[in-house]
């Protein structure tokens, strides 16, 4: 971001280090980025709310909202307008200050993470060298919001929801933090862009399919993030059948909307984080890292590479968001004790084992292959072949088997695949 502003100032014929208006230029750039990222989160949350309802409907053999605009695409705009125009009710026995404050904590926790999230090659607000640490720290803020809203509502349902959420989020930060360290060890950096640069464009170059530890850590992190984002099967804090709506029971109008803005915006954050750490981020298949280094040395990175990296990254994120939605409408909710034992008896030991093994492998591969172990392994090398075989065994074969099983499920009912009437 700073480099971009500096370049613009130079274009205007000024020297950024001496120009009087440089701080103002930075300030304006910050504002633009802030408004842009907040709007992006809001629009993404809105569109996801629509898309989730459509997908849920199809999975329950229904049609879903399709009346507002073409295919119901404007449903989320109508919903947002409705929420804005609704009366902002505050329960008489609620703690008014905290009650008003709580939704903003959640909103800030979600929106702040966009500061470090990558969107494509050199695309993103900043590339902090402690980006991952910042992201984990910023998302932790949401617990305060949930707990505050539960307590300030002065309602039993809200309080139960808030307490459950706090217990859940705090416990699942442990396996998430441990699982996150596996790609950090492999890449040797906390910067999200550097972690992506340590991977490659093809699936066997991703951290998920390079080592068994990466594979296990991917699932641990994914489950932990689902739990932190209060998504099904870990939606105990807002368990409708038990707690009405959990911590946001007493909220109405746009304050209620903020909770959902944060929840759906968080889907992008979760998916982008997992994509960055384990699924190769913005790496375009076919463009190897040596090629990219050569372009960077000559300062001739082509425009299409920026566009392609953006497209690749967003596609991966959208696919993951769909998987999260798909899980939500498939799996039932955990019990509180199951949720806790899954975290402490399974995820934490697995993540810890992965971390230790990943560290050991890193040292061993450095001894075996030398400093080049940090670089992408071409398919002609021993490491490359190992990665490819591991990808086929853990990713390719299950994917094909799964597709066949889905086709079989359709055939068993005597129906045909039919994408009409979407």
């Amino acid at each position: 971001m700073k480099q971009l502003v500096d370049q613009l100032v130079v274009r205007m014929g000024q020297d950024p280090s001496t120009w009087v208006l440089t701080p103002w230029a930075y300030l304006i750039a910050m504002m633009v980025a802030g408004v842009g990222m907040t709007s992006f989160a809001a629009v993404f949350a809105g569109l996801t709310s629509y898309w989730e309802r459509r997908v849920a409907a199809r999975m329950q053999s229904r049609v879903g909202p399709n009346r507002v605009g073409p295919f119901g695409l404007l449903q989320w705009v109508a919903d947002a307008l409705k929420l804005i125009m609704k009366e902002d009710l505050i329960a008489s026995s609620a703690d008014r200050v905290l009650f008003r404050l709580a939704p903003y904590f959640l909103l800030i926790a979600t929106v702040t993470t966009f500061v470090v999230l990558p969107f494509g090659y050199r695309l993103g607000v900043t590339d902090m060298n402690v980006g991952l640490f910042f992201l984990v720290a910023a998302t932790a803020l949401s617990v305060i919001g949930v707990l505050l809203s539960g307590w300030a509502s002065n309602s039993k349902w809200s309080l139960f929801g808030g307490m459950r959420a706090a217990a859940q989020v705090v416990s699942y930060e442990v396996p998430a933090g441990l699982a996150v360290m596996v790609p950090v060890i492999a890449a040797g950096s906390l910067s999200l862009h550097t972690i992506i640069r340590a991977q490659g464009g093809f699936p066997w170059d991703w951290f998920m399919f390079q080592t068994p530890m990466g594979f296990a850590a991917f699932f641990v992190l994914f489950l932990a993030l689902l739990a932190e984002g209060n998504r099904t099967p870990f939606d105990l804090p807002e368990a409708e059948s038990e707690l009405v709506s959990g911590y946001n029971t007493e909220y109405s109008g746009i304050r209620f909307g903020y909770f959902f803005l944060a929840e759906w915006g968080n889907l992008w954050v979760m998916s982008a984080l997992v994509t960055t750490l384990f699924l190769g981020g913005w790496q375009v298949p076919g463009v190897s890292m040596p090629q990219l280094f050569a372009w960077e040395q000559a300062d001739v990175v082509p425009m299409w590479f920026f566009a392609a990296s953006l497209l690749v990254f967003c596609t991966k994120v959208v696919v993951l968001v769909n998987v999260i939605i798909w899980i939500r409408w498939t799996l039932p909710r955990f019990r509180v004790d199951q949720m806790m034992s899954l975290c402490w008896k399974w995820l934490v030991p697995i993540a810890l084992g992965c971390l230790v093994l990943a560290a050991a492998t890193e040292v061993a591969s450095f001894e075996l292959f030398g400093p080049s172990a940090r670089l992408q392994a071409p398919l002609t090398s021993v490491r490359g072949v190992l990665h490819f075989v591991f990808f086929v065994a853990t990713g390719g074969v299950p994917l094909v088997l799964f597709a066949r099983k889905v086709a079989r499920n359709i055939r068993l009912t005597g129906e045909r695949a039919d994408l009409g009437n979407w």
Partner: protein
Amino acid sequence: MSIKEAVTSVWEGMSITLSYMFRRPITVQYAGPETSQQSIQHALPSRYRGLLEVDMDTCTACQACERACPINVIAIEIEKDPANPKQRVMTRFDIDAGKCMFCGLCVEPCPTGSIQHSREFEASQTNLDNLVLRFVKPEAPALPYRPTKGATAYPRRVLGEITRELIKRWDTPPPPFKSE
């Protein structure tokens, strides 16, 4: 909690839900109140329970439906005809559709089949008070029906006509908004 069981059940469940993404939904698109109401009503199942309808021409004023209703949705008032004290007349037969839970318990005891579930369902209103179906106008009280002895079938108007008329009257002209 075993890992194998978790993985296989998730595998199974996810494949089933995904397979529904590639099928036609089982529900039928509702065309909306503005288009071809009749065709929708013909597509409804044969024992569909829509808004209640009473044919006052075959009502015997036995009040069996009023007694059968578990939540007092039906209100019937029977008075003596001031002109002819031997004659009983119904001055009121109201059904609060806003309260009705469409259980069908009132339809069962009706000796003549006067009260029935119609197939009308498009009756949204802006005011809850407007949802009261008034089958008797106070100015024109209804006489109880005297069935002929041994009759097994009773003449009845086409199901749905009466309620449809009442629903139309709700809208044109709009009924007054009852203030507190």
